[in-house]
């Protein structure tokens, strides 16, 4: 059923008792053209674009838990394309353009809100670095504005601009087209769109092994039986290496935990996304009124989906330094997600040395905003057995060949990206 004002009124008149489930719950078939492992944002978007852009609909998404139970439902929903290096800039800008039309394309409201993303600077050196980044962004056709201290104060007045500020605000880099989206709706919208085109969503189905004939992939073993396919795309984020190790592959990936927080609901308070430039902290406000905030990784390998208290303290201290009025607000909920941190901070979307096996991983902090473009180019790579121009640089062999895409210049230390 198409969602529309007319259908809303029609269903209201019958007491909302006749809505259909947004997707079917089919039994897995024994054979598909393409299997996507992982029902997170990237897996679901890939299935959607395989059907929409390439007419490939004999597809199943295999999810070990429920759709959207992984990082796509745990992130802090920031969408932006303020990258400096070419490969990242074009890929994330393609994503931002897809976001701008996503609700209409999916016929599902993903609540994309272009409220701007502001990165604060606290030193002249940081201002210089942001000027350089803003220039690179503009040369790549991406919107960027450098704000001085007064312009920053006008844009977001409730920060600490006093004499006492531990790290006085010097200005900031604003991307006006950046913003937030409703993360669950993104997973649900892509799932519904793919299901409408014939893709099977198979939940509670964990992939436990692979079938292969020499160097050719043939299918998977799952907790719901053997499923065969000639092409298999892996999109399992923080769990990538637990599957690739079954294929004898070692990857430039470490899994780390990232925590996030939501406060009690408040009246409208912050109408943008703002990041602290002197420590690890960022904040926005959800449409329900809760402040959504987070910081950096816990900085050690983890699959636990929960973090430790030193990071909680650090994040909230940074928040207090930037926004002292936070002190009287209570934290309502707090959680963690398992991040696939790559060795240069950029993603990997590629064919592999095994025929028919495709890899989508290495999302670090930033995979939510990448969701539409990641699905778009991964579907292209799987359908054509060759990369799209926007993921041609996101290979595995860039590491040995020296073509790293190291936006932060942090080197082969996953926790530092």
């Amino acid at each position: 059923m198409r969602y529309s004002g007319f259908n809303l009124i029609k269903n209201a008149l019958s007491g909302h008792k006749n809505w259909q489930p947004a997707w079917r719950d089919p039994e897995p078939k024994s054979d598909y053209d393409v299997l996507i492992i992982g029902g997170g944002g990237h897996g679901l978007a890939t299935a959607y674009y395989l059907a929409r852009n390439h007419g490939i609909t004999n597809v199943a998404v295999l999810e070990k838990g429920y759709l959207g139970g992984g990082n796509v439902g745990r992130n802090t929903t920031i969408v932006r394309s303020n990258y400096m290096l070419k490969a990242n800039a074009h890929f994330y800008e393609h994503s931002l353009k897809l976001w701008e039309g996503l609700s209409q394309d999916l016929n599902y409201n993903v609540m994309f809100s272009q409220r701007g993303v502001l990165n604060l600077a606290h030193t002249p050196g940081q201002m210089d670095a942001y000027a350089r980044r803003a220039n690179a962004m503009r040369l790549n056709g991406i919107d960027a504005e450098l704000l001085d201290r007064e312009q920053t104060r006008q844009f977001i007045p409730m920060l600490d601009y006093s004499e006492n500020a531990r790290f006085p605000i010097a200005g900031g880099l604003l991307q006006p087209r950046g913003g937030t989206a409703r993360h669950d709706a993104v997973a649900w919208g892509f799932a519904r769109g793919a299901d409408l085109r014939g893709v099977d969503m198979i939940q509670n189905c964990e992939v436990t092994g692979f079938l292969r004939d020499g160097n050719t992939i043939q299918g998977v073993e799952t907790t719901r039986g053997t499923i065969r396919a000639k092409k298999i795309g892996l999109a399992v984020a923080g769990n990538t290496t637990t599957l690739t190790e079954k294929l004898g592959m070692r990857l430039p990936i470490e899994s780390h935990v990232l925590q996030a927080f939501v406060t009690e609901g408040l009246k409208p308070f912050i109408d943008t996304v703002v990041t602290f430039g002197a420590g690890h902290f960022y904040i926005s406000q959800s449409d329900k009124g809760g402040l959504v905030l987070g910081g950096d990784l816990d900085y050690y390998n983890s699959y636990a989906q929960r973090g430790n208290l030193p990071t909680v303290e650090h994040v909230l201290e940074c928040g207090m330094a930037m926004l002292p009025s936070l002190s009287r607000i209570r934290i309502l909920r707090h959680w963690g997600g398992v991040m696939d941190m790559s060795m240069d901070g950029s993603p990997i979307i590629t064919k592999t040395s095994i025929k028919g096996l495709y890899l989508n991983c290495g999302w670090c902090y930033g995979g939510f905003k990448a969701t539409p473009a990641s699905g778009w180019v991964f579907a292209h790579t799987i359908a054509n057995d060759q990369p799209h121009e926007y993921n041609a640089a996101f290979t595995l062999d860039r590491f040995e060949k020296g073509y790293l895409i190291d936006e932060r210049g942090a080197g082969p230390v996953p926790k530092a990206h």
Partner: protein
Amino acid sequence: MKIKCPYCGVRDQGEFSYEGDATIKRPQTDDADAWREYVYSRNNPRGPHKELWSHIAGCRAWIVVERNTLTHEVYNSYLPGENKDD
């Protein structure tokens, strides 16, 4: 998490800095594949993991910690070189 420093005893995790996988070994050859594996590839296990931490806000020693990446349980810690298997 609490981590036991061989010099300072059991201390809060916040005093330590994580320095990564303790099992990778610098290759004794100039073979490019061996160097790629050393610099970039990790086992990234979901379970027991041998890793390096430094007691940055304490005695500043680097130590080997055996820890579970799924449960965060710390099993053991010692100075590098103390375990013949490393």
